[in-house]
C-alpha cells in the first residue's frame, strides 16, 4: 500500500498550474522592473543634465517600452516574454496598483522623450520613482512567496543579486540628482544608503552574511564573476568621488551600466543553479514514481508465478495428510495455502492491501481471472470438504484437477506479462532465465506430489513416468542455470551471490534426487523428502529473486 499512496501523492505534487520555470521567468522580469524604475529616472536626469542626451533618450524609450510590456504581461500573460499570469488575488491586485502608478509616470516620460516637458513633470518623476520601485518590489516579494523559496539561501542570493541591478541604477540616479541639485539632502542620504547597501550585498555574496541570509558563494564560476564585479565597483567608487565634468559623469554612467550588466549576469547564474536543482528534483520524482509502478507490476507477476507452485503444494499436502504423515501439520498448511491462493486470486481482481495488490480493470486480465475461478471454485470446495472430513473422494478430485488449475494459473501469469511489458531489453534477455528458474519452484512441489501418488499406489505407472519427466526437467534446468546453455540462450551466471545460491540448491538437490528416483523408501528417507522439498523450494525461491535483481547476471 505504501507504494500506491506514494504514486498518488506524486500525482498531486506534479499537478501544478504554473510551472517552476514559468514562475522563475515572472520573478526575474518582475525583479528587473525595479531596476528599470531607477534606470528610467537616471536617463531622464541625463537628458536634463545634457549628459549624452541622445543615447539616454534611446535607452529611456527602450526601458519605458519594456516596463510597459512587462507589467501588462505579468497581468495578462505574454508568450513572447514567457510570462504567465499567476492566478493569485493578492499578486494581481499588487500588479494593478503598480500599473495605476505607472500610467501617469509613463505620460511624463513620454513628454521628456518628446522634448516638451515642464519642471512639474521632472518633479513628478523625482517624487514618484521611489514609490513605483517600492510597489514593484512588493509585487516581487509576493511572487517569491508563491514559489515558497524565500527561505532558501540560493533564492535569497537570486533576490539580492537582482537587487544590486536596481541599486546600480539608483546610485547613478542619485549622482545625477546631486549634480543637478547639489543641495538636495534627500539625494545625498539616499546615495549613501544605496552605496552602503550595494557594498553589503556584494560582500555578502562573496563571503556570506547572516544578517542578509546569504551563504558564501561556492560555485567557482560565480565567484569569478563576483570578483570582477568587485573590481568594477571599486573603480566606480573611485571615479564617483572625483567626477565633476560632463565627460567624467558620462564615464561614470557607463560604468554603472557595466555594473548592471555584470550583476545581471551573476543573477542569471544563481538562477540557473536554482532552476536546475528544481528541475532535477522534479525529474527525480517522476522517475521514482515510474520505478515504483514497475516494481508493483513485477510484484504482481511474481505472486501470480507463486500461485502455480501453490496448486502443486496443496495437492502434495493433502496427500501427505492422507498418508498420515504429520497429518495435523499438513492439514494446517493446506488450509493456509488454500486461503493464500484464494486471497491472492481475489487480490488480483479487487485489490488487497496486505498483499500490496492494487486490483485491475483490465478486461484481458479479468477474463483470465474468471477462467481460473472456474476451476478454482470447485477445487476450493473440495479442499474445504477434505479439511473437514478427510474424505478420499475429495482428495481424488484434487489429484484429478490440480494440473488443470496449474495450467490456468500459468495462463494468468502469461497474461500479466503481456499486459505489463517491461520495455527493458536487459530484463527481456533475462526473462527466459527467470522463467525457467521460477518454474523450478513449482517442480519441487510437483515431483513431491507425484512421488506421494506413487507411494499411495495411485496409477503408479502413469505417475512414475510423470515423475521421471519432472525430475529430469528439474535436473536439466538446474544444470543449464548453473553452467549455461548456448542453445537455450541461457548465460552462465557471473554474479558471485547468485552462483553461491545455485550451488546451495545443487547440493540440496544432489541429496534429494536419488530419493525421488528410488522405488521403496524407508521412513527416514520419506521424512527427508518431506522436509527437503520445502527447503529446496525456499532456496530455489531465493535464487529466482536474485536472478531478477542482480545488476549483472
Amino acid at each position, binding site marked *: 500500500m505504501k507504494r500506491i499512496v506514494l504514486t498518488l501523492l506524486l500525482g498531486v505534487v506534479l499537478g501544478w498550474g504554473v510551472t517552476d520555470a514559468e514562475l522563475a521567468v515572472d520573478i526575474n522580469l518582475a525583479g528587473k522592473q525595479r531596476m528599470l524604475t531607477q534606470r528610467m529616472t537616471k536617463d531622464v536626469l541625463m537628458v536634463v543634465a545634457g549628459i549624452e542626451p541622445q543615447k539616454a533618450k534611446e535607452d529611456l524609450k527602450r526601458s519605458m517600452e519594456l516596463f510597459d510590456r512587462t507589467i501588462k504581461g505579468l497581468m495578462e500573460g505574454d508568450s513572447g516574454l514567457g510570462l504567465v499570469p499567476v492566478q493569485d488575488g493578492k499578486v494581481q491586485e499588487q500588479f494593478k496598483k503598480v500599473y495605476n502608478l505607472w500610467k501617469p509616470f509613463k505620460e511624463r516620460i513620454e513628454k521628456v522623450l518628446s522634448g516638451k516637458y515642464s519642471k512639474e513633470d521632472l518633479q513628478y518623476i523625482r517624487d514618484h520613482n521611489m514609490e513605483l520601485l517600492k510597489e514593484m518590489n512588493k509585487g516581487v516579494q509576493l511572487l517569491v512567496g508563491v514559489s515558497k523559496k524565500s527561505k532558501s539561501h540560493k533564492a535569497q542570493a537570486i533576490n539580492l543579486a537582482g537587487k544590486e541591478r536596481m541599486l546600480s541604477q539608483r546610485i547613478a540616479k542619485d549622482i545625477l540628482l546631486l549634480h543637478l541639485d547639489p543641495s538636495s539632502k534627500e539625494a545625498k542620504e539616499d546615495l549613501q544608503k544605496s552605496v552602503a547597501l550595494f557594498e553589503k550585498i556584494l560582500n555578502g555574496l562573496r563571503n556570506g552574511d547572516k544578517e542578509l541570509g546569504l551563504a558564501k558563494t561556492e560555485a567557482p564560476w560565480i565567484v569569478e564573476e563576483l570578483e570582477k564585479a568587485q573590481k568594477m565597483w571599486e573603480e566606480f567608487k573611485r571615479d564617483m568621488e572625483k567626477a565633476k565634468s560632463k565627460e567624467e559623469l558620462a564615464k561614470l554612467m557607463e560604468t554603472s551600466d557595466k555594473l548592471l550588466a555584470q550583476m545581471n549576469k551573476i543573477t542569471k547564474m544563481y538562477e540557473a543553479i536554482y532552476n536546475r536543482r528544481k528541475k532535477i528534483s522534479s525529474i527525480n520524482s517522476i522517475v521514482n514514481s515510474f520505478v515504483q509502478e514497475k516494481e508493483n507490476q513485477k510484484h504482481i507477476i511474481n505472486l501470480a508465478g507463486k500461485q502455480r507452485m501453490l496448486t502443486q503444494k496443496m495437492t502434495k499436502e493433502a496427500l501427505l495428510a492422507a498418508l498420515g504423515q504429520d497429518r495435523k501439520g499438513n492439514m494446517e498448511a493446506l488450509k493456509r495455502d488454500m486461503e493464500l491462493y484464494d486471497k491472492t486470486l481475489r487480490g488480483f481482481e479487487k485489490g488487497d492491501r496486505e498483499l500490496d495488490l492494487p486490483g485491475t480493470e483490465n478486461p484481458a486480465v479479468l477474463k483470465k481471472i474468471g477462467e481460473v475461478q472456474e476451476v478454482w471454485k470447485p477445487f476450493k470446495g473440495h479442499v474445504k470438504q477434505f479439511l473437514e472430513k478427510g474424505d478420499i473422494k475429495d482428495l481424488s478430485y484434487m489429484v484429478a484437477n490440480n494440473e488443470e488449475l496449474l495450467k490456468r494459473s500459468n495462463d494468468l501469469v502469461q497474461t500479466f506479462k503481456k499486459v505489463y511489458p517491461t520495455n527493458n531489453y536487459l530484463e527481456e534477455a533475462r526473462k527466459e532465465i527467470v522463467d525457467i528458474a521460477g518454474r523450478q519452484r513449482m517442480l519441487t512441489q510437483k515431483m513431491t506430489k507425484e512421488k506421494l501418488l506413487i507411494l499411495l499406489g495411485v496409477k503408479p505407472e502413469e505417475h512414475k513416468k510423470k515423475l521421471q519427466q519432472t525430475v529430469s526437467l528439474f535436473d536439466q534446468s538446474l544444470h543449464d542455470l548453473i553452467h*549455461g546453455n*548456448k*542453445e537455450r540462450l541461457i*548465460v*552462465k551466471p*557471473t554474479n558471485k551471490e547468485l552462483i553461491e545460491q545455485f550451488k546451495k540448491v545443487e547440493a540440496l538437490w544432489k541429496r534429494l534426487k536419488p530419493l525421488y528416483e528410488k522405488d521403496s523408501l524407508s521412513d527416514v528417507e520419506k521424512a527427508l523428502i518431506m522436509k527437503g522439498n520445502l527447503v529446496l523450494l525456499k532456496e530455489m525461491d531465493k535464487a529466482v529473486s536474485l536472478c531478477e535483481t542482480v545488476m549483472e547476471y
Partner: protein
Amino acid sequence: MKKVLLAWGIVVALLAAPKSEEKEIVLVKITKDIPYIYVKHKGVPIKVMRIQDTEHLLLDDYSKTSRPCPPFCIHPISVDERVKTIATVEMIKFMRDKLNTGKGFVIDARLPRWYELETIPSAINVPFTLLEKGDKKVAEKIFKLFGMRVGKDGKWDFSQAKELAIFCNGVWCDQSPRLIRQLLKYGYPADKILYYRNGMQGWKLLGLTTVVEKEEIKK
C-alpha cells in the same frame, strides 16, 4: 620474413572451438551479424573474435587509469573535422570490406617497440615519427606503398591511394593524431583517413584478438 610468433593468449580459446563452423554458437559476438572475421597478419590467417569467457577481465597495463598528463592527455573526439572518427564496429567492418578486398590498410601509428609487443591483427606499422622528420622522400616512399602514384611531372596523384584506418594506444595517446596531422599536411586525402580513437585499449576492453610478435615482459 621474420618468423611470426603466434603467441596470442587470447587465441587459445579458438583452438578449443568446434570444428564445424556452421554449428558454432558464439555467445559473445561483435555485432548481431558478425560473430568473428578472418584477416591476414603478415601472411598468417587469423580469426578475429572476442574472448568467449564471459568472466574474463582485462588486467594488464591497458587497465591503467592515470598515465601522467602531460603527455598522456585525453584527446578530443576528432583529430580534424575532415577526418572521420570510427569505433570498433567500423574497424571490424573496415577489415572485412576494405582491408580484405585490397582497398585499405590498418595502420598502427605507434613506435615499433609498442607494435612488436602487441597489435591489432592485420595492422602494419607506420610510426608517427617517420613523417614528422619532414623528409618528403620518406613520405613519397610510404605513400607509394599506400597506392599513391607519382606523375611524370613528379606530382603526387592520390586518386588510387588506399583508405587508412589509423590507431594507437587509445584516447590518451597522441601517436595516431600526430600521424594523421602529418598525412593531411602532405596532402593525403582526408576522406581516405579514418581515426580509430579507442585504439588498442578499446580493442582489448572488448576482448578482441591481438597478435604478439615479441614476448617480453611488459613494462
